[in-house]
């Protein structure tokens, strides 16, 4: 995929499909240590050890709509290409954690890309009934965060997918990310 944010959208979709009610996404750009780490943690149904081992096999999927599952294998390949790796941890009934690490300065590392669009695509899932999302993006010492539980508390019964709300979310995310990029 052309952007890491597209892989991240894919990871977020996995969390939804696992029936999670809360998802934590952390992106840490450690410029001194030359590492970019992506962690997605969900409280979905989790996987047995055997399923977990098959999850990075492109010819394994739990879906019935098709016969391949390329999301995690593509991300694992992208990470390994950049002197990094992909680590999965999961327990049935508890949830799943996916950690992908890349060498930040590696020539083959795709740019992070449009995080605002990725997060919005996730939050619009099934008419705004996506799980709660806690998002944190750290670049050096700068941090940008969004907790959709706090946003939802402010909105009451108005869904995140409401046109006025989705516009606000997009602008908020674009500006937050732009400020991070401007102050490394």
């Amino acid at each position, binding site marked *: 995929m052309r952007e890491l944010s597209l892989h991240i959208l894919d990871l977020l979709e996995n969390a939804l499909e696992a029936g999670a009610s809360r998802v934590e996404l952390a992106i840490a750009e450690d410029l001194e240590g030359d590492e970019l780490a992506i962690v997605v943690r969900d409280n979905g149904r989790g996987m047995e050890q055997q399923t977990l081992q098959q999850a990075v096999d492109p010819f394994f999927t739990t879906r019935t709509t098709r016969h391949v599952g390329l999301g995690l294998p593509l991300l694992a390949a992208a990470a390994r290409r950049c002197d990094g790796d992909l680590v999965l941890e999961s327990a049935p009934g508890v949830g799943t954690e996916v950690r992908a690490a890349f060498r930040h300065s590696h020539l083959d590392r795709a740019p992070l890309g449009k995080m605002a669009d990725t997060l919005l695509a996730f939050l619009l899932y099934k008419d705004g009934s996506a799980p709660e999302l806690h998002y944190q993006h750290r670049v050096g010492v700068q941090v940008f965060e969004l907790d959709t539980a706090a946003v939802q508390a402010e909105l009451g019964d108005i869904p995140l997918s409401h046109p006025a709300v989705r516009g606000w979310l997009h602008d908020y995310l674009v*500006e937050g990310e732009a400020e991070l990029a401007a102050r490394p």
Partner: protein
Amino acid sequence: MPKLKSIEDLKKVREQAQRDLKVRTETGTRIIVGMGTCGIAAGARETMHAILEELDRQGIEANVTTVGCIGMCSKEPLVDIEQAGRPRITYCNVDPNMVPRLIEEHLRQGNVVYEWTMGRVPSEGIGQGS
């Protein structure tokens, strides 16, 4: 409208949203974008962004939502348009360049763009994907 960027500004958004929530749920249009691995790799996120921008530009209010893979991966990005009292239409291989015409002809003029459709299914049919 000025840019709203603080959580406090959400209060204004909420007030605005509450006023028209009822109207929208009764006359709702839903635009559904497939967002599985296949959709994402084929550019569905960009297609969704183009849809949101075009709706804003034309001042059309419609619900936009995403769903997982429904198994027609080679036709992604898939976009379904559902309007009250009308059949649900599935458009396939929708790239951002196709979006303005889709919104103009289907939503504004009420004409299905048949050359881009996959087919028609009942409103409770596909797209609620796994």
